[in-house]
């Protein structure tokens, strides 16, 4: 199963955050706000980037549209998206373990 994720990895920081934010159904603006808060304002996503991310991630089956209110579409992480995110975090944990000594530099 892990091999299946290879073509998506590594995720960019913004993609990882968008996927994380979509563990609950959210529309575009909601995602942007949540990512900004979660990342302590280290990651800000522009509207062009977000729109593109939504359509790409949906095409790849990592997120799915779960609602449409007026002109705002909301999305939610799919099973495949969850798996990918898990694998991405696992890899980051390994990086973090290796990187811990840098705190004493």
């Amino acid at each position: 199963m892990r091999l299946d994720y290879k073509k998506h990895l590594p995720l960019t920081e913004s993609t990882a955050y968008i996927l994380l934010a979509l563990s609950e159904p959210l529309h575009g603006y909601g995602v942007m706000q949540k990512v900004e808060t979660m990342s302590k304002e280290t990651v800000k996503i522009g509207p062009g980037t977000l729109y593109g991310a939504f359509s790409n991630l949906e095409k790849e089956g990592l997120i799915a549209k779960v609602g449409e209110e007026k002109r705002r579409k909301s999305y939610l992480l799919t099973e495949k998206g969850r798996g990918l995110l898990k694998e991405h975090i696992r890899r980051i944990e390994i990086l973090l373990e290796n990187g811990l000594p840098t705190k004493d530099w």
Partner: protein
Amino acid sequence: MKTMKKFHWFWAWDDEKEEAWLRQMAQEGWHFKSVSLPGNYIFEKGESVDYVYRLDYFVDHKDMPAYLQIFEDTGWDYLGEMGGWQYFRIKSRDGNAPEIYSDKASKAKKYERLILYLVIFLPIFLSMMNITSRSDAGYLRFFSFLAEALMLLYIYAMVRLIIRVTKLKKGV
């Protein structure tokens, strides 16, 4: 209110220069009112405002409402379209210039969409060249010349856009 017509052409790979020019116009008190092909702007005179302009390339008209909604929700004013170029504006805060693309990978996709769109015209160009080059009629010689000039421009535009995408992807 005082308005001004101005013709200003820009090349697709230089769209950032156009954004900078529009910002400068706004600082001088000339505010974007409308644009139509091939670069006919109408500006309205007002007070100097530091507006930041951004151009996106987007032609999926079916999904336009959802696309525009995301921009609107984040404080961007939608100004209009010219041949697939979508014009947006936001007021600068403390002189900084917000981006609509927050990373290079997604910005590269904007130019990739444009390249893809240009590829559609390739068969038209080729058939045009084929028709015009087969005849010796005087008036067709002119069209043949025109077709060749357009073809050269087309190739040049493609190369410039591909360079732009490559640079963005390499993170230069």
